[in-house]
């Protein structure tokens, strides 16, 4: 009886799956992310050509010579499908006017399919000249990388901190990263001092990139080569989404990967439809793209439309981190009642609430953050078949171990004895009759 019921339930699930497959929901899930011209990864190398690059302190050569040698090696090793461009900063203006000096950034080689010879010739012409306008150069570089579906990466190579305050290159990096999804800035500091390390690692952290200190030529070419190769690794690009501040207004999410921003003290709501017999799986990570206090946490709650909490995932941490993440899963049981409730009743809308407890390091930073983009949120949503419920602690209710064997043997033996006595008694009765 029970078996038949389960079979029926299974059949229902199958039909549900099939009908799901026909609806637009999973038609979306079928298009494999494949690579074509549109999706070619784009990399722009941004090289500091300021006057200080003349210093001869990298393996006895000038910083500029080291950079040129590294660029030549990297250009030779660039994978075919990567579109590479080169931008310089401080290459042209020799004067003392800050205003002009801070606009001095130029695209040396446009982002596109790479002609190695052209690119190398262009690099060879460079000679150390002017200011260090990192912020404006990053803005321009982001513009150069616009368009296309592939991942985008800026590799910034500099030997001095930005000389064009008050435009903070860190803020610029954060803004760039907030405008478009999936843009990373990696920074390399040539023979860095502490202030420069702070600034360059701040730029890198603002976009989920990396910071490297360079003391030798081979370190530079190895690292830039590695970063270009990483850009060529295929990854799934998250879809930008904007969570609402209540469930009723929340955007509906299909299985996939999403990117959003959440400010300090903000709640973001999303909705996911789950059918009976399916399991909702959601993971979230909230990145720390700015200086935050050392204790932080993240909370994701799955609640019903009527605000009943179904399940939650939470995590807390302390210390230096790139992100904090948690996840949850919600298996929706099969429906047991046979009377045909219509399809709209079957599907449950689950509301996902995401919040984090990062805090700004100071009151001014907190106030500043109000008008700025929030912290990056990455949300992965998946809907799969629901699991079997466990009906016992042990697998299939089976036993294991010497106690089990002892108990079974004892029971068998006692049973045998009783049966033996019984049959002896019966024979005796039969005899007497």
């Amino acid at each position, binding site marked *: 009886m029970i078996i038949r019921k389960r079979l029926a339930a299974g059949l229902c699930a199958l039909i549900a799956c099939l009908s799901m497959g026909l609806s637009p929901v999973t038609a979306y899930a079928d298009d494999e992310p494949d690579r074509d011209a549109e999706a070619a990864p784009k990399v722009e190398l941004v090289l500091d050509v300021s006057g200080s690059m003349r210093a001869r302190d990298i393996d006895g050569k000038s910083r500029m010579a080291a950079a040129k040698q590294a660029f030549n090696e990297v250009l030779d090793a660039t994978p075919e499908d990567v579109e590479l461009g080169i931008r310089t900063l401080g290459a042209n203006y020799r004067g003392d006017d800050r205003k002009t000096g801070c606009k001095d950034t130029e695209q040396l080689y446009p982002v596109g399919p790479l002609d190695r010879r052209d690119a190398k010739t262009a690099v060879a012409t460079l000679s150390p000249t002017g200011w260090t306008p990192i912020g404006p150069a990053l803005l321009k570089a982001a513009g150069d990388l616009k368009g296309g579906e592939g991942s985008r990466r800026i590799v910034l190579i500099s030997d001095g901190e930005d000389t064009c305050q008050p435009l903070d290159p860190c803020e610029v990096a954060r803004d760039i990263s907030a405008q478009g999804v999936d843009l990373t800035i990696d920074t390399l500091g040539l023979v860095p001092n502490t202030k420069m390390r702070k600034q360059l690692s701040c730029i890198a952290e603002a976009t989920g990139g990396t910071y490297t200190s360079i003391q030798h030529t081979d370190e530079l070419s190895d690292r830039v080569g590695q970063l270009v190769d990483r850009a060529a690794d295929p990854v*799934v690009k998250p879809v930008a989404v904007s969570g609402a501040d209540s469930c009723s207004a929340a955007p509906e999410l299909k299985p996939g*990967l999403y990117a959003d921003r959440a400010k300090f003290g903000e709640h973001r709501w999303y909705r996911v439809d789950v059918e009976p017999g399916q399991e909702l799986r959601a993971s979230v990570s909230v990145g720390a793209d700015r200086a935050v206090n050392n204790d932080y946490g993240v909370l994701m709650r799955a609640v019903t439309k009527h605000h009943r909490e179904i399940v939650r995932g939470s995590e807390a941490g302390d210390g230096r981190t790139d992100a904090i993440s948690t996840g949850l899963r919600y298996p929706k049981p099969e429906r047991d009642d046979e009377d045909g409730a219509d399809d709209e009743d079957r599907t449950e809308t689950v509301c996902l609430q995401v919040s984090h407890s990062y805090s700004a390091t100071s009151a001014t930073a907190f106030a500043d953050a109000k008008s700025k983009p929030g912290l990056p949120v990455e949300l992965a949503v998946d809907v799969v078949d629901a699991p079997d419920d466990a009906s016992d602690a042990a697998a299939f209710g089976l036993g294991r171990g010497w106690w089990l064997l002892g108990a079974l043997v004892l029971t068998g033996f006692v049973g045998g*004895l009783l049966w033996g006595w019984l049959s002896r008694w019966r024979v005796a009765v039969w005899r007497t009759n």
Partner: protein
Amino acid sequence: MRTKRLAALAGLLGLTTLLTSGAAFAASGDDGKGPADAGTSFRTATEIAQGDRATASASTGDYLYWSFPADAGQRPTVEATVKLPASASRHAGTTWRIDVYDGLRRRQSCMYGMQARTAPKDAASVDLACTLRTVRAWSEPWANDPLPGTYYVRLTATGVETADLGLPVTAEVKATSKDIGGAAAVDGTLGAPLVPGKRAALSAAEPEDGWASGWWTDRWAWTAAGGVLAALAGVGGYTLARGRAPSGA
């Protein structure tokens, strides 16, 4: 569910099949050479197989991510070694740390192992290790138990002076696991292992022999052996109590 169990029972009839599939659970082993780079986020984590020795050259302060698959009944151990730059270029001690996350990006606790360690200024390398709890085939949604699926390893310097940021290091990571067997066999199975969905990752690594179907556990052998012994004991008891059948009966 019940039908699955019936299938499992049918499978039980072929005792030989049962024993051979048990052998398929041999613990993963040898020192394979793994990938030579690491990812920098959950999304870009480099996939490694259990037993692979993955390496990566990186900078102090990078967040390095790898992922490996672990199946029910395994107790994974992640070991990492960080080779530090020459001590002359360093300014202070650095704290290194590995964190392990499951396929839902939930942090998993370590039962044993030095998960974090502070390397003094003159140390040449740091060794870290983390042994997870045994991966269970099923758990309640409200629990945080390790479940079959992808596991992410994050290696980073959590305590680092600004002056030491960006210095070159090389990291080595290896994930192995011990087979715990039937002692950890719980009832129930997941609908699908906890791997990032098709739209959240380009590929999802599987164990070498694919994911376990979930019906084999050595509890079948114990229970069957118990049944046989009980039957024998029953016959023995019967013979003892019944005595010899009188001749001519």
